[in-house]
């Protein structure tokens, strides 16, 4: 599986993503600058990493969504290339229109930085096939704007089409997200956006390895 990580000004989880991808896929990802025109043509997986792209100016993810490389990311997503947006990457995907809804300021107003427990809600996707439906996972979150919001009709549609991939455990929702949503898939199921960081849950030294199956799923699906 060939992967690429997009690097925006003020991305800060690009290397975390690269480390996890290198360890799990055995190949370092291409690091692609936001001002570049194209992601390498043979890329199977594009990762939009966490961080504070463009200093969160205007709205988190709004500027990055307009950057040059995103035209090619959108074109490749339309062709079926897998795209994983983590944290700021999820915010960018919603601003770019690749995923519905938006990430609002955390309901508690505070930046939340801690491990959270989630359930895998959907195992029928290239990102989650190595998990069992209902399985518990534990990834860190680190965000100030992770409060997923969409209108009721959109939320009903996401649920009806089994596009909620990860959900926070009831009573442990770190940001007030609607229906405890932590991560969602697009209609074609080749784009996943999520606030928690699976790439930081791939090494036993970091306290959890429950993020590994996400990348192993992608290897199974795309290799």
């Amino acid at each position, binding site marked *: 599986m060939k992967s690429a990580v997009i690097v925006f000004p003020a991305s800060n989880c690009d290397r975390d993503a690269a480390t996890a991808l290198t360890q799990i896929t055995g190949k370092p990802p291409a690091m692609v600058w936001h001002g570049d025109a194209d992601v390498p043509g043979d890329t199977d997986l594009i990762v939009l990493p966490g961080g504070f792209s463009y200093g969160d100016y205007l*709205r988190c993810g*709004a500027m990055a969504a307009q950057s040059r490389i995103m035209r090619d990311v959108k074109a490749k997503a339309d062709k079926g290339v897998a795209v994983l947006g983590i944290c700021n990457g999820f915010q960018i995907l919603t601003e770019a229109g690749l995923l519905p809804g*938006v990430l*609002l*300021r955390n309901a508690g*107003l505070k930046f939340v930085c801690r491990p959270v427990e989630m359930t895998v809600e959907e195992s029928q996707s290239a990102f989650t096939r190595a998990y069992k439906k209902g399985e518990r996972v534990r990834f860190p979150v680190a965000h100030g704007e992770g409060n997923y*919001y969409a209108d009721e009709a959109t939320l009903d549609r996401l649920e009806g089409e089994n596009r909620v991939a990860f959900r926070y455990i009831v009573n442990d929702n770190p940001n*007030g997200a609607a229906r405890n949503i932590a991560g969602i898939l697009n209609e074609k199921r080749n784009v996943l956006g999520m606030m928690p960081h699976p790439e930081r849950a791939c090494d036993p030294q970091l306290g959890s390895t429950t993020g590994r199956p996400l990348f192993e799923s992608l290897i199974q699906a795309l290799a």
Partner: protein
Amino acid sequence: MKARVFVTLKNGVLDPQGKAIGHALNNLGFGSVGEVRQGKVIDIELSEQDQAKARAEIKDMCEKLLANTIIEKYEIELKA
């Protein structure tokens, strides 16, 4: 031509910052303060001199970048 764009959250969208501002105003003794909503003001200078064209252009900017219309609404003021 100068344009001023007001971007505010739609009714019904939770505004935790507005709520915090409201609490702070109450704590300062402004007891009559009810709900507070906060937003952004963006000033834009345009070389376009035609009002209608300028308004259409700003509207396009709002739809494409300045506002996220899932949660925000916008108002445009033009000054020659």
